[in-house]
């Protein structure tokens, strides 16, 4: 019995050490955001700020047009999330409930595109779009949204495939077409998956760096790009404490979404990773 309790004690010690590794950098970010510039470079290194410097946060939102960049990020991520959720739901419905020639090979292609590194297409896409005049517009995100995401299609397909056939048979007897079956029966049933999809795709785009960095100039870009390129002193050096404050403000929405909706993240991760 004592042996067992000892084992639990050791496990907790290990878990604590790991927790420091995983939470430490986040804590350090927030601490840096609360330090005065002179305190950040103090020797020896201070762990805790002497007095929290909230002015870093006001500097972070006033030195750049923080609100406008936040608006860009929100608009872009929101538009993408709504579009990609509905397009992926429709495609997932098609693969789960409808028959058509070539369905199996098409689905195999879909699964293998999940494996295709997006980076391979992103740079050529940038070259192509700059010639088509789509750079510095939000159209690329609209197009990506309309095109559905293989990952989310898979998520919806798994959910729709598990719904009993009686639902659609009854609706067909009542004279419904598949459009209405999808819209009136399957979509309302899939509210948790819809929410998962919205949250996931929103956080993807909120966190995306490369696409806005390539496709948008500094006036149109998102918060993620803006905070990496701003906050310098006249010599061109970064002001780490203010940048830390900006980065803190930037991650807070994602953290909140995650903490309140953790089970949706877990669900999506699990259904793609375990059944996949």
């Amino acid at each position, binding site marked *: 019995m004592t042996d067992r309790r000892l084992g639990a004690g050791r496990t907790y010690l290990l878990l604590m050490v790991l927790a420091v590794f995983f939470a430490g950098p986040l804590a350090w970010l927030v601490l840096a955001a609360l330090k005065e510039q002179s305190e950040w470079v103090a020797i020896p*290194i201070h762990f805790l700020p002497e007095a929290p410097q909230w002015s870093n946060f006001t500097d972070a939102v006033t030195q750049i047009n923080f609100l406008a960049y936040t608006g860009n990020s929100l608009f872009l991520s929101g538009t993408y999330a709504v579009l990609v959720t509905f397009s992926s739901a429709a495609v997932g419905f*098609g693969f789960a409930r409808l028959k058509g020639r070539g369905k199996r090979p098409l689905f195999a292609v879909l699964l293998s595109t999940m*494996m295709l590194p997006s980076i391979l297409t992103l740079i050529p896409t940038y070259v192509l779009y700059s010639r088509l005049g789509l750079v510095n517009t939000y159209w690329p995100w609209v197009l990506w949204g309309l*095109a559905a995401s293989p990952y989310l299609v898979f998520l919806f397909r798994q959910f729709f495939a598990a719904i009993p056939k009686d639902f659609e048979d009854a609706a067909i007897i009542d004279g419904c077409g598949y459009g209405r079956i999808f819209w009136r029966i399957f979509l309302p049933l899939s509210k948790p998956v819809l929410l998962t999809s919205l949250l996931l795709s929103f956080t993807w785009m909120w966190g995306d760096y490369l696409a806005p960095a390539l496709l948008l100039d500094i006036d149109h870009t998102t918060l993620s790009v803006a905070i990496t390129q701003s906050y310098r002193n006249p010599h061109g050096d970064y002001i*780490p404490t203010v940048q830390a404050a900006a980065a803190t403000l930037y991650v807070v929405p994602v953290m909140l979404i995650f903490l309140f909706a953790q089970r949706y993240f877990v669900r999506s991760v699990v259904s793609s990773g375990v059944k996949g």
Partner: protein
Amino acid sequence: MVVQKAKRTAPARPARWSRYSGRTFYLFVSPWVLGFLLLTAVPLGYAFAISLTNFDGSSSLWRWVGLSNYRELMRDSDAWASLARTLAYTALVVPLSVAISLGLAVLLNRRLRAVGLFRTIFFLPSVVPIVATAIMWKLVFNRDSGLLNAILERLGLGAVTWLVDPTAFYALIILTLWGLGTGMVIMLAALQGVPIELEEAAVVDGAGRWRVFRHVTLPMISPVLFFQVVTGVIMSFQVLVQPLLLAETNSIGAVTNVPPSTHLYMVQVYQEYFANQRFGYGSAMLWVFFVIILVSTLLVQRSSRFWVYYEVDRDQND
């Protein structure tokens, strides 16, 4: 509640209906099909077309150069060195992250108090956006003010300049491992999916904890491990943003500050495109990489039958 189905058959569906259903299938999947063709296949094909030219991104004075970009790439020692570094990075990161996330999952799969809190803490970093991740790790690795050197200082050890060579490579690996929570959650679910009777039966047969794990649990979750290896390899091949943001590069094209040890293949591609304005050459590099990724995915897939255990019914939900 299971309702015994009476002899109520599904409504008879005439040929007209199945034609309708077929058309509707294409209608429903068309967003993805069109999207795949226009937003994936077309850019890839376009990249192949430019890889046969000396296009520099802006001027209209370009011409076809045949395969000369590819021939040059064969002799490009910088590109090969960056590929070798990418392989070394992958060879370190993938086994480490699979092993550690499995270890964490085993740890969290025990009935302990507050285990949910630890799961949240370990999972959290994987949703932190890449930009914030890079900024905070730069603060942690900072030579004069970083958390890591603060700890070393307290232990009486000297400060390390982490973000230059040779340590930059390991800093990049640590940053990558920090975000392994997704893999951990997947493995945790996989562990919870292993039928408890199997493990109990092994215990009854006299197997110790390690042998149960090695010979029952591990084979049962090997398909999940396999999936993690495949996605892990693909993910680490395409790493680009982390080295760019960890180095003090702050505008598109300025990749000169990336320390050599984290100058991975995609960084090299990026440099050819945006620093050297060699769009044709960069596209050739992309296409060669595309083929390399395809081949290595197939190789991993091939290797799966030697170490992945599938239950009889592989595609039951089809």
